[in-house]
């Protein structure tokens, strides 16, 4: 047992204990159940905050590690650990869970007990995914998380919930089963499921007892992992499960889905694809980036024309996550940091968007934008919150969305200016779809009589939204609190995939020969090189 | 002397005819008979091999096969009677309630 106590185990299994407690309770006292669930999730949140202390700023590697034998043959270990990247993803999860519980306070009326049990089980799975350092364990949690989510969609969702739930499971399974094959293959090559060991082996030269995968093998392995993650992200063109899942899921489900579950995909890319298969990652980077960019633009354009508000937000996730993937596969430390930040920011802002959409749905039981219009009049506060969140989502500086997006684009630009330029179009388009939909929902005269008397936010909703807004603002202004802690981990990932050349600012000396040249073809070539055409 | 080949080939032919009978007969009893034919073909092979190898166990196997065939016959005919009673037909193609 490594030092560090059992905080991580507690984090993983505390929700399970809570769920068990709920199961044993009688199912008819809804209020009591809700309160218990809330307390459990809040306690879990506080536990997760304890981790921050344990992850020193600037330290690479894993902290609070736990290590225990589990299965002998093949050697599978219960190995947990946390680093800068997973730290905040876990906190994001534990933060969004109580929010989701609060958001479901009144909208979930039947099978209340099961609902909260499922929510807590989902939390267990997701936290487990982020904390596992054993490939097998990781896969286990990855799959475990599927079922509660499918139930959340399938039981408490809207009209086409069953279709969406099944689609969600099938899509995810299609990818994850191949990942399982990949994991096993990797085990065959390395003889261990332990992530740090595998990493170390793959990074040690053959001559020193390490392991070098044949390029083709590495690429296949990379693809096996990548496909699973890409589906989860979801990367274009594997995204079509997402709109359905979101639209049909209950608010809490959407919040968790958009807030955390999608991050599992990008987290997987950072944690597995890049460090384990650097060569393949480098070779695939161009293709991945193209897909990510298509996703950014395509997601935004499709979001723009959605008549369904929730679908719009769902497609916007496709667009936003495209930034994350792009940032990861640009292999630049700035963009990587940006990607990590964007994951967190997207969790908050899109989570909040779904909360708001859910609140609208609670009032009017529809997601059709055409059913709304002029809502700013009866519910100014909700309108204000919505605008605030929409702005953070479209990347307004000083709100959380900007930091990640900016860093991603900035970092990407340093390596591939073309990619960044295309991706930056997303910045324009996000304004288009968010503001247009906002206008259609909140501005103008009231067109439906029903909307005239809708109540503004209740106290509970106000507290939820205010919390989200404060976090949004804090993340937009005080980003260094987070980036300082993710920096080392992100840097080490980059180092593993592609050691960065030390930064060299261009100097006039280097530019002098170019200045001497006339505006001939040669000069053009040099200038384009300086621009970063590689 | 007759080469063992001949016996075994004969057994193969009989086995094939048995299969053919199984496929082409409609009457359940006849189909069952074709199974008996196949078992007989097997027996012939056993005896021929036994003889060729100079070992007796092949003949012992034949005895076992005959016993098994007898047991099967008892059960099989029981089932056939059951079918005939409940369905008033012995045509195997009419017994297709379970399908797809």
């Amino acid at each position: 047992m490594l030092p560090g106590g059992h905080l991580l185990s507690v984090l993983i299994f505390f929700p399970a204990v809570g769920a068990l407690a709920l199961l044993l309770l009688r199912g008819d006292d809804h209020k009591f159940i809700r309160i218990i669930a809330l307390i459990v999730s809040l306690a879990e949140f506080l536990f997760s905050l304890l981790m921050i202390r344990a992850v020193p700023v600037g330290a690479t590697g894993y902290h609070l590690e736990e290590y225990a034998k589990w299965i002998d043959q093949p050697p599978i270990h219960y190995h947990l650990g946390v680093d800068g990247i997973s730290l905040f993803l876990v906190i994001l999860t534990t933060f969004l869970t109580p929010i989701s519980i609060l958001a479901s306070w009144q909208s979930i009326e039947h099978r209340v007990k099961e609902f909260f049990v499922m929510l807590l089980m989902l939390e267990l799975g997701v936290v487990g995914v982020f904390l596992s350092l054993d490939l097998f364990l990781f896969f286990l949690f990855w799959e475990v998380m599927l079922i509660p989510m499918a139930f959340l969609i399938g039981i408490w969702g809207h009209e086409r919930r069953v279709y969406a739930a099944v689609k969600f499971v099938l899509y995810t399974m299609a990818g994850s089963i191949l990942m399982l094959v990949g994991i096993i293959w990797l085990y065959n090559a390395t003889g261990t499921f332990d992530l740090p060991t595998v990493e170390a082996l793959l990074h040690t030269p053959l001559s020193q007892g390490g392991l070098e995968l044949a390029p083709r093998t590495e690429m296949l392995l990379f693809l096996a992992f990548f496909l699973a993650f890409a589906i989860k992200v979801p990367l274009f063109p594997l995204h079509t499960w997402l709109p359905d899942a979101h639209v049909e899921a209950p608010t809490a489900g959407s919040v968790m889905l958009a807030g955390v579950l999608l991050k599992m995909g990008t987290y997987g890319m950072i944690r597995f694809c890049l460090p384990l298969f650097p060569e393949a990652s480098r070779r695939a980077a161009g293709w991945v980036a193209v897909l990510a960019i298509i996703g950014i633009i395509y997601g935004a354009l499709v979001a723009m024309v959605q008549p369904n508000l929730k679908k719009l937000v769902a497609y916007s996730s496709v667009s936003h996550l495209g930034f994350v993937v792009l940032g990861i596969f640009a292999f630049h430390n700035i963009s990587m940091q940006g990607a990590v930040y964007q994951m967190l920011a997207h969790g908050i802002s899109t989570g909040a968007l779904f909360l708001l959409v859910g609140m609208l749905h609670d009032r009017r039981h529809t997601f059709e934008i055409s059913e709304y219009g002029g809502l700013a009049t009866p519910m100014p506060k909700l309108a204000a919150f919505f605008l605030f969140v929409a702005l953070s989502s479209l990347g307004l500086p000083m709100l959380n969305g900007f930091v990640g997006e900016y860093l991603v684009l900035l970092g990407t630009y340093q390596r591939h200016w073309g990619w960044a330029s295309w991706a930056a179009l997303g910045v324009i388009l996000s304004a288009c779809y968010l503001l247009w939909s906002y206008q259609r929902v909140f501005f103008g005269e009231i067109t439906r009589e029903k909307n005239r008397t809708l109540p503004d936010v209740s106290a509970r909703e106000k507290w939820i939204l205010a919390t989200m807004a404060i976090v949004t603002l804090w993340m937009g202004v005080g980003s260094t609190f987070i980036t300082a802690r993710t920096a080392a981990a992100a840097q080490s990932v980059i180092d593993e995939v592609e050691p960065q050349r030390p930064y060299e600012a261009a100097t006039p000396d280097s530019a002098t020969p170019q200045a001497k040249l006339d505006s001939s073809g040669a000069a053009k070539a040099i200038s384009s090189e300086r621009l970063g055409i590689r | 002397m007759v080469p063992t080949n001949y016996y075994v080939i004969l057994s193969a032919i009989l086995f094939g005819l048995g299969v053919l009978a199984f496929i082409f007969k409609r009457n359940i009893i006849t189909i069952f008979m074709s199974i008996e034919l196949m078992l007989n073909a097997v027996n012939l092979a056993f005896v021929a091999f036994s003889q060729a190898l100079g070992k007796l166990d092949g003949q012992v196997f034949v005895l076992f096969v005959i016993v098994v065939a007898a047991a099967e016959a008892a059960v099989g005919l029981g089932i056939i009677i059951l079918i005939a009673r409940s369905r008033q037909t012995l045509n195997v193609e009419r017994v297709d309630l379970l399908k797809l």
Partner: protein
Amino acid sequence: MLPRAIDIYRVLPELVWCGFGVLVVLMQPFVRNRHFFTFLALIGTLAGTAASVSAAMRAGPGFDGLVQSDSFSFFFRLLVGTVAFLVVLAAGPYLERERLPFAEFYALLLFATAGMGVLASAQELLTAFIGLEMSSISSYILAGYRRDSLKSTESAMKYFLLGSFATAFFLYGIALVYGSSGTTMLTKMGSEELFHSKLFELGLALILVGLGFKVAAAPFQVWTPDVYEGAPTPVTALFSAGPKAAAFALLLRIFATVPAATHFWFWAFWGLAALTMFAGNLGALVQTNVKRLLAYSSIAHAGYILVAFAAVTSMARDGSAEAAPAYAAVLFYLLSYALVKLGAFTIVSQLGGTGEKNLSLDDYAGLSERQPFVAAALSVYLLSLLGLPVTAGFFGKFYIFKAAVNSHLLWLAVLMAVNSVIGAYYYLRVIVMMYMRESSAEAKSAAPVGFPLTVNFVLAFTVVGTLYFGLFPNRVLNFILQPALFGR
């Protein structure tokens, strides 16, 4: 040479099962109390299972090598014994409900179990054949046990005709093997010249046909859905768990023991596995009858197990050490699968109601509201079949994947992955029905189906087992991974 005591010990489980079978038959005219037979059968199955421990403690070849008492047969005896025990428990209420005679059922069950035990321990083809026939003939009768049901009798007829047909192939295969090798002892088929004997190959091929039929490998799977659907549900549970496992045991022993068999068979198993997986999963996609759906699913799972066989046969010539994980995969999978299928069919049997009327998927709509615990248990089984973690099915699948990847069977692994996804769809359909659909009005108004104590015990046992092996597979794995699995 007359049998020695040690020989008797080594086949004790089978003898005990047979003995109790005979006992039941003999008592039948004299005892009216049905529960007495249940009790007797329970004792019998347990005693036989216990006897397998004693057999395992005296490991070694019995009857001059006709049978082998080793870890492998121990595993399967335990498995089929437990299956039989659970089937007895689950069948009681069913027989009661359907007003079927008890004693004969249990006697046949015991004989069938004995046959499976023989099959699992046989080291000689003819003995295996007798074992196979014991279990088969009992199965034929059990399939037609509901004599007043058209479906049941049809099931019996089809099973009987086709089973005998396949047995003939199997037997012809034995004949050819005997003719080419001069022996029917698996351990004596090691000679080098058999590697080049076409006749031997042909014999093995026909044996594979016969056993392929028993394990429901495509294209020999055609009988499975019909027979499973028609047979009384507890019998179906037995079919899917017991004889199949035993047939796999024999298949494994043949292809693990006979070097010439191991060597050439890779592509055949590859093809069988691929075909079987697809046949099962695709067929199940469109089923609306739960029993039939589970039947197709068991075809699919046979396909998965055959993947492990492909892995076994692709291993080096006599590499039992290397192939150990692949064997283990088969064994573990059979274990997890038996537990799950037993549980699932037990639930189906219980929910079916008198005359097995409620077998349609629609009858399961809203089950989670009406009978939450049953729905939860069935979900656990389905998730295990689906191969989701913390269930035994997950580890089973994991090991098969591992075996496949070990043997570089990447494409097969990918095909299996594809099939897992297809499978997920129809398993989810059942879960969706139970959890996400409303009950029909009449189902709502009807009182919940009672689950007697014995059935609940079966469910609890299988659920706990499924979860236990899903979380802590260590013990069983270490057991089945031992290099000297096949006592030699």
